[in-house]
């Protein structure tokens, strides 16, 4: 098993390298002269040259790349021009807000999509199968910003069930003392019931919006994988041995069918990271996505590049984690090695 894990770790290296190369090329592709840009609009010719030397932009490209990697290794993502703060610090401060939405959305989407996929697979052609088909096709067609606004209109404006769809917390509350940065956990740790409930209410709409978006791929995969498992010999044998249908379905079929679903989670995470940018804009959510949008609007490049790089690295590591998880839960992978 150690060898399998080592091989998977090695296989992730080219992707990690690729992500770094692409983001490096993007930093050098800024329209115009990056040195003039970073020196500021009123800089003299000399000042621009000085910035160019400081940033190492007068060096050959391979050397610039090595410097870029060295900065990266020290966790240096540059400074934000608008706030003057290090990009890494600002990204780290805002990451928990984004993660809280993504993680809850993943749990919610799985909780709905997996039973739906199983039900569709056990009764192919039935109304529930048709419903699953409709949900999966509609789910991938919905622009997340549209779903988000629609939900805000119905649940905030019409029904008044949801709080004002702006930010992580109603302004009358102050955030819980930071432990994990996830408000639900921090509020629970602080033992503040009202605060927990307030942050939960703010989370509902963004989380549901994102969950609707990623329901489709999970349900589709569960259905397809469940269908193939239900048609296999061991399920027929289990049925013929007189095991109850629920035992066959859950203990034999579902456990095997979930393996390919775990693999799709990587892709699903990619969707969620992308859609979180848009969802954070809709709900005024102070996460990394809205940070990148604000920087984009202000033509502040370092935060945008820091964001793209961080999300790229995070995504590669997540896929690696899923690969490793796969090794742990699927005994066949160990045997193949």
């Amino acid at each position: 098993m150690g060898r399998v894990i080592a091989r998977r770790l090695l296989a992730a290296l080219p992707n990690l390298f690729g992500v770094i190369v692409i983001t490096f090329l993007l930093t050098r592709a800024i329209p115009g002269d990056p040195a003039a840009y970073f020196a500021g609009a009123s800089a003299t010719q000399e000042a621009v040259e000085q910035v160019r030397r400081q940033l190492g932009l007068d060096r050959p490209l391979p050397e610039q790349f090595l410097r870029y990697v060295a900065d990266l290794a020290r966790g240096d993502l540059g400074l934000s021009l608008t706030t003057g703060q290090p990009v890494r610090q600002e990204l780290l401060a805002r990451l928990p807000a984004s993660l809280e939405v993504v993680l809850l959305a993943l749990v919610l989407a799985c909780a709905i999509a997996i039973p739906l996929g199983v039900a569709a697979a056990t009764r192919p052609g039935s109304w529930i199968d048709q419903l699953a088909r409709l949900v999966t096709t509609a789910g991938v067609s919905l622009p997340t910003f549209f779903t988000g606004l629609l939900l805000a209109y119905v649940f905030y404006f019409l029904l008044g069930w949801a709080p004002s769809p702006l930010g992580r917390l109603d302004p009358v509350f102050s955030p819980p003392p930071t432990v994990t940065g996830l408000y639900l956990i921090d509020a629970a740790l602080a033992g503040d019931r009202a605060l927990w409930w307030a942050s939960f209410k703010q989370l509902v709409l963004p989380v549901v919006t994102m969950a609707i978006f990623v329901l489709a791929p999970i349900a589709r995969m569960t259905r397809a994988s469940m269908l193939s498992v239900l048609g296999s010999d061991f399920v027929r044998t289990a049925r013929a041995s007189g095991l109850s249908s629920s035992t066959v379905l859950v203990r034999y079929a579902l456990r095997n069918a979930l393996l390919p679903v775990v693999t799709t989670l990587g892709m699903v995470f990619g969707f969620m990271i992308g859609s979180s940018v848009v969802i954070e804009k809709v709900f005024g959510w102070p996460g990394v996505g809205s940070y990148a949008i604000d920087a984009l609007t202000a033509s502040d490049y370092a935060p945008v590049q820091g964001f793209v790089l961080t999300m790229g690295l995070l995504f590669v590591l997540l896929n690696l984690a899923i690969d490793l998880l796969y090794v742990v839960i699927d005994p066949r992978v160990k045997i193949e090695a």
Partner: protein
Amino acid sequence: MSSSTTIGHVRHVLSDNPVTLLAATMFAVFVLLALVGPFVVPYDPLASNAARALQPPSAEHWFGTDALGRDIFSRVIVATRLDLSIAFAAVLMSFLIGMPLGLAAGFFGGWWERIVTRAADTVMAFPLFVLAMGIVAALGNTVGNIVLATAIINLPFYIRVARAEANVRRGAGWVEAARLAGNGDARILAVHLFPNALPPAMVQVSLNMGWAILNAAGLSFIGLGVRPPEPEWGILVAEGAQFIVSGEWWVSFFPGAMLMLAVFTFNLLGDALRDIFDPRRRT
């Protein structure tokens, strides 16, 4: 398959599945709107009229008016051309670049295949929407760069499809026969392998169209690419977003619904194309 049986099969699929027929009809309507939209809309999509700002849908303004009194119906219809053009240009670009790259990779193998698949994997190593954001941010905030970014993030899918098709066929008897008949590599790729890779690629094109529309609209929703007052579905939704909390739902709703309908159409069409081209993979 001769052309008459192909037409028969298409007719069979259309009549067998009403959803497919609906998708084909909606597709035709969208194409028509993109072509003639600007000539048939009742109002100038850019003409503001402060006296009629933020009016709910009525007989005069079917989709209501926005904060500047512009007719939303006209703006939504006129936007069709821009949205479809961006998506079409992007998908065409990834098709034209991805297919030759992928076919050559699958056909020749070796270091060329390694480079191409590695490049495709590297693009796929990113959350694609985030990469598109980064590309547009780096290259400049223009519609051309939205097209380019969308083309780049779709490229791996075409490379993979083409590579897989070329890979399984490169040793086939008829490829050997074509070679013995004196055809060069380039001619075998273009005349013999390309047509075989076309059906799965067309399915990809249709599914990608929906996805490209969503992607471009998402980018302009967050303020990249298309600039106001140019009507574009993503921007139209963004312009109405602030009015949702005060109850003026129509400003965002109609462009959003139109966008959703367009994506839905292409996704259904992709499923239908799959049924036509590859009945075995029917789900």
